[in-house]
């Protein structure tokens, strides 16, 4: 029969418990002996160590008397251990009034002292009996109340820790406490079972369990903030040592068996052992690998992820894909719920959220380049965790908004993405779903992945910049070509219009004069046809100038683009109704308008522009379709977007859109609508752009600059004066000087003005005009613009220099090309575009003369 007292299963466990406890004790002592909480934990481990060694000495005692002595020593530690544990729990909780603690400590340690004094007597342990499993202590009656008090103390300590566990906001702390609580519960259960008579001793196993769980927690989860530098060495030493022991015992057992039962000699024995050892080696390797995997599973996973991410980023230069890939990989591997990637904007002023997971992107604001977080990330290599934000003094510069954003994303880890010392982005990770702390291995993996990501993101950004530059270059090139074409057309149209206007002026003037003289209805009818033809001709010239974008004769006023849309729709709606009723073409019109500040413009022209674009969209919709109009304000521009789901514009003709007389509608279109629209918007300082895909539809964007507050105010201030001038018209006879080098025009004007009752003096050129004005006394001057040697501008200036109140009317075939405000500054009060009617001329004269009267009082 085997002697239980010498059996390894009886003697070995206390030794194992001792070794683990002592290693733990040394580790905690070396790493964090300054913290009171850890000091108390050290004391607890110390008692545990002494308990284990006392049990070993008890079990290995040669006789019952020696065993009784050692068991009474064990009782000192068993009953005293809860005191130290409770002390530890109080230091962990760190309740507010430490003086109370001191009294509690005093009481508890006095209680322990009492145990130390009483333990050698038979009050706790009465005697020892030898049982089948070894020595069995028989407890004295006093042991039980002490036991109950000790267990209560342990439970009170557990309650203290669980209070912290419940209230702590720090997930890693909760993790640590969880391990300590579980380990302590096992210890309590083991100790309680030890106290039940008749049961074999299992308390030592709970001791081992406690130490092992705590060791695992320290190694894997940095319990008590202990990060072991020699972690790997320790793990290898422990696990491989353990394997070696098993391996060695196995070989030793086999050799003993061979020698005893088979009588094999030493050398043969050695040979057989060598063969067995070699054949068992793969199993040893496998076991070693298992240990590795168990402790370093994350590392294995991480390596696989790094490889996968490397492959993914190699295959793309798309910034969006890259950011998605990074976020997906990081969140899936680290199992964190929230991740946000901040990338610099094009101007480099902000780091904006490029991609996020687990949180609404709209609740996140960007980080300014001046943000302390960005400055820190630029200057430092390491990661920041949430605790660092509370601790690092540089973080005192974080604004409330930035802090609340970090709280919003529950930022647990902030990682600068750097490529060659340049900050490419910032990755912010929320807590892990398991609420565990990011391990060293996690950080290592992140360092590699983020390093790769920084390079790839920079490359992708550079690629995109090049792509954008090329696109912009192409767009500018197209714009230049179009502008040059328009300029050439404009020059030609301007010249033609000028000459044509002069001719029409002569025809119209003479026709109107003749109409006054002639009474014969037949001749009058003919003259009216001539008059109408001249007026039609003038309109044609104006249209020519419109689409060549050279008109500048309009006074801009504040215009609300939402009103423009409203008026345009009023004009387009009859056509939509007609299309539906006549052709059954139903177009679903949707309107989305935002509050937009006014633009400076001519409302009529803008309505014409929008109507042109709307008509094109309606034409592009072949059957039933959708037409959408949206208005919005972006930066300092008001935007009207007109989108349809029509046929779209083929790529090969996109660059011809807006050219005069170019139409995709065949015989149905003149090809002037969009050209006029381009001209109008260009003159308003805006732009027209479009996106189009064949078969999907087209969206036109009209962008107009928002009017400055000053301009709006000026415009509002001017308005009543103009209205008042028109309302107060008074007819008056005046002395008028007419300066024109074109005899036909001169004669026309003279006749018209004399017929209107004015005194008229004629000058054939600018020099003569100025001379006559200096010599005479005139109420008003009418001058042509284009004259040899001295132009109409110079005549106007000379007149104003002489008598500033005399109004000057400039007549010109270029009229629409001048800015009236500028003309006023140059001394011209009114510009009349040739051809003009007699009524128009008289109305201008009367208005100007009345204004002079009012100003002179």
């Amino acid at each position, binding site marked *: 029969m085997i002697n239980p007292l010498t059996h390894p299963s009886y003697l070995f466990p206390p030794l194992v418990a001792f070794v683990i406890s002592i290693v733990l004790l040394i580790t905690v002592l070396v790493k964090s002996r300054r913290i009171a909480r850890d000091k108390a934990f050290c004391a607890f481990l110390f008692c545990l160590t002494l308990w284990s060694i006392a049990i070993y000495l008890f079990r290995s005692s040669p006789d019952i008397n020696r065993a009784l002595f050692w068991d009474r020593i064990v009782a000192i530690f068993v009953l005293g251990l809860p005191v130290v544990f409770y002390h530890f729990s109080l230091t962990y909780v760190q309740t507010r009034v430490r003086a109370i603690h001191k009294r509690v400590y005093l009481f508890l340690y006095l209680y322990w002292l009492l145990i130390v004094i009483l333990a050698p007597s038979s009050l706790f342990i009465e005697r020892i009996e030898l049982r089948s499993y070894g020595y069995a202590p028989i407890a004295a009656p006093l042991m039980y109340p002490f036991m109950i008090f000790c267990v209560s103390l342990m439970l009170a300590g557990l309650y203290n820790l669980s209070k912290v566990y419940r*209230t702590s906001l720090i997930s890693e702390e909760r993790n640590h406490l969880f391990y300590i609580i579980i380990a302590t519960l096992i210890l309590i259960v083991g100790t309680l079972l030890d106290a039940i008579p008749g049961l074999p001793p299992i308390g030592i196993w709970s001791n081992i369990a406690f130490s092992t769980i705590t060791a695992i927690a320290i190694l894997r989860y940095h319990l008590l903030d202990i990060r072991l530098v020699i972690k790997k060495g320790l793990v290898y030493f422990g696990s491989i040592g353990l394997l070696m022991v098993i391996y060695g015992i196995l070989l030793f057992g086999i050799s003993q068996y061979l020698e005893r039962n088979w009588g094999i000699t030493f050398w043969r024995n050695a040979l057989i052992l060598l063969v067995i050892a070699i054949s068992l080696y793969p199993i040893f390797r496998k076991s070693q690998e298992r240990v590795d995997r168990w402790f370093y599973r994350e590392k294995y996973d991480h390596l696989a992820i790094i490889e996968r991410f490397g492959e993914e980023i190699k295959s793309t230069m798309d910034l969006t894909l890259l950011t998605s890939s990074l976020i997906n990989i990081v969140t899936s591997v680290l199992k964190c719920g929230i991740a946000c990637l901040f990338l610099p904007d094009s101007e480099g002023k902000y780091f904006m959220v490029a991609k996020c997971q687990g949180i609404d992107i709209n609740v996140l604001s960007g980080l*300014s380049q*001046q943000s*302390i977080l960005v*400055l820190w990330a630029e200057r430092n290599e390491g990661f920041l965790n949430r605790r660092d934000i509370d601790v*690092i*003094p*540089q973080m005192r*510069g974080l604004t*409330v908004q930035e802090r609340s954003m970090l709280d919003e994303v529950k930022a647990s880890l902030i990682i600068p993405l750097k490529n060659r010392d340049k900050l490419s982005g910032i990755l912010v990770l929320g807590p892990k779903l398991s609420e565990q702390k990011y391990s060293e291995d996690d950080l290592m993996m992140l360092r590699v992945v983020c390093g790769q990501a920084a390079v790839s993101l920079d490359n992708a950004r550079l690629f995109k910049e090049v792509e954008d530059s090329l696109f912009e270059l192409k767009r500018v090139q197209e714009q230049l070509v179009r502008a040059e074409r328009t300029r050439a057309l404009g020059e030609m149209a301007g010249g033609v219009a000028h000459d044509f206007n002069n001719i029409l002026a002569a025809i119209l003037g003479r026709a109107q004069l003749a109409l006054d003289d002639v009474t014969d209805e037949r001749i009058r009818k003919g003259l009216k046809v001539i008059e109408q033809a001249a007026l039609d001709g003038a309109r044609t010239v104006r249209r020519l100038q419109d689409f060549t974008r050279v008109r500048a004769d309009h006074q801009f006023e504040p215009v609300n683009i939402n009103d423009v849309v409203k008026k345009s729709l009023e004009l387009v709606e009859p056509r939509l109704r007609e299309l539906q009723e006549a052709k059954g073409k139903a177009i679903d019109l949707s309107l989305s308008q935002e509050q937009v500040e006014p633009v400076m413009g001519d409302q009529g022209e803008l309505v014409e522009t929008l109507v042109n674009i709307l008509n094109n969209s309606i034409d592009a919709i072949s059957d039933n379709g959708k037409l959408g109009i949206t208005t919005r304000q972006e930066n300092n521009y008001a935007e009207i977007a007109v989108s349809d789901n029509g046929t779209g514009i083929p790529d090969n003709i996109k660059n011809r859109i807006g050219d005069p007389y170019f139409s995709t509608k065949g015989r149905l279109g003149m090809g002037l609508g969009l050209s006029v629209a381009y001209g109008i918007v260009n003159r308003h300082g805006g732009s027209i752009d479009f996106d189009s895909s064949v078969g999907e539809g087209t969206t036109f964007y009209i962008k107009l600059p928002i009017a400055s507050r000053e301009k709006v105010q000026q415009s509002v201030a001017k308005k009543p004066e103009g209205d008042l001038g028109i309302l107060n018209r008074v007819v008056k006879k005046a002395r008028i000087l007419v300066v024109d080098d074109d005899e036909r025009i001169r004669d026309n004007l003279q006749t018209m003005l004399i017929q209107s009752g004015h005194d008229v003096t004629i000058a054939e050129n600018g020099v003569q005009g100025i001379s006559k004005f200096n010599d005479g006394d005139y109420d008003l001057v009418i001058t042509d613009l284009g004259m040899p040697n001295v132009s109409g501008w110079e005549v106007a200036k000379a007149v104003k220099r002489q008598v500033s109140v005399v109004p000057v009317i400039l007549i010109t075939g270029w009229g629409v090309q001048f800015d009236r405000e500028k003309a006023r500054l140059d001394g011209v009060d009114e510009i009349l575009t040739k051809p003009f009617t007699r009524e128009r001329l008289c109305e201008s004269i009367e208005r100007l003369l009345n204004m002079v009267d009012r100003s002179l009082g």
Partner: protein
Amino acid sequence: MAYEDEFFRTLSEKDIWQRYCGFLDISIDEFMDIQRRLLMDQIARVSDSFLGKKILNGIKPKSEEEFRHKVPITTYQDYEPYLSARCEDVLAEKPLFWCHSAGRRGSFKWMPFTVAEYEVTAKYCVSVCILGTANKRGDINFHPGDRVLMNLAPPPYTFGSILHHLPQYFTFRPQPPFDESENVDFQTRLQQGFTLALQQGTDVVLSLSSIMVKMGQSFVERQKTMKLSPSILLKPRFLKSLIRARLVSKRQGRAMLPRDLCQPRAALTGGTDTTIYRDEILYYWGVKPFEFYGATDSGFLAMQNWNKKWMTFLPDVSFLEFIPEEETIKWAENPDYKPSTVLFNEVEVGKAYEIIITRFHGTPLFRYRVGDVIKFAALEDEETGVKLPQMFFYHRAGETIDLASLARLDERTIWKAIANTGIKYEEWSARKEYNGSQSFLCIYIELKEERQAGEVGHLIDEQLKIIDIDYVDVGTELELQPVKVTLLPPGTFQRYLLERQKEGADLAHLKPAHINAPDETIRRLLKLSEVYSGK
């Protein structure tokens, strides 16, 4: 658990030091980064409020340069109608509480404290305690639950208000407890706290320097007549301390001192007179005083390093600008003059500057004249390794006595000169007076010992020559002693104090000002002295 307590529980000592005292380890560039960032944040937070718009003239400066260029320097008068009425509608944020100054200049200055501002202040309260009790870098000798003997005015006085709200953020045991002390008069509160400190011991003393010394003096004077009740003597802790204190004092052949009984780890003081009382505080309380600098309008602005030598400005309380002394003089001569300011990274050693602050964290105080003049002693503190400019309080702006344009004496200089004579005095007040065209430094002083006025004047004159180098020229140039001393009979100042108390004057206005007291005050002191001397 209070917010800051949690950090003590969960952080290592190294991290606790970093959190509360780490500002001493930042570089000047990092200091300026924090300043600029929080200034822009402050502008963004406050510029849309009524008061913000009013002070900023409706502009929103986009940079620190634009801010300094476009925003005028302000004084309390610019805010007074709104702040005195505690009008919250004009503010950007609803304040956590309102508090007011001691009203040394005749009226209270009311100031709001936002939640964000208070969080920063609470953190710095802990910093003061840690640095005050530390002997070297990283030393954490102050913990939640420690006892603090406090001798400060209750809410709504500023420091009273700050301390009143502190338990929400940090646990400490005030001596006397708030609920027992806030509704009693200052003397009773002082007595309550001191008695508790003697009975229980105390970890930290927080008080004005002069009061700390007064407590020590009064303890020494009254200990022979002091009767201890049996209930106190039955307390073992007190009995133990008493026996030890008696033995120590006997062995050293002196009277028993508060330090023998209480043994505080730090004496925390604010105010302008700490340097004067430094040695006495060390004598009575056994610890060098730890000085911090702040006011109602500025909040905490600076505090000493653990070597208790010079003070370091805090980076995240206010945006700091400094008007060089020569600019202040030009400004005083011509009120239309716009003085230029320098920033914290531009200051020079040995130069005096008037402080201009812009508060962070939501209180709309922009380019505000605190009214204090400070001097920079060094650009860094080699002893502690702090790489930031080191300063000390110089004097209140405008509270100097100009003697023949040759020397400008401030309160501290005169005080130090009086103290250095070794003459025992009760109280004093000084101002400039003329005899024809001749100006003199007139000191009205009540002594605790018999001396002649001429002798006292001579001794002070000698000390002033040692302390202030410019003062030497005054005597040489004027060919006469510029100090004139008027001795006031014993009890004059006490009588004055009682009269003011009867008139219902506030605590802060009981004592005559040390510098440039108004004619009325001097007249009353002289009248009282006549009554006492029986003239």
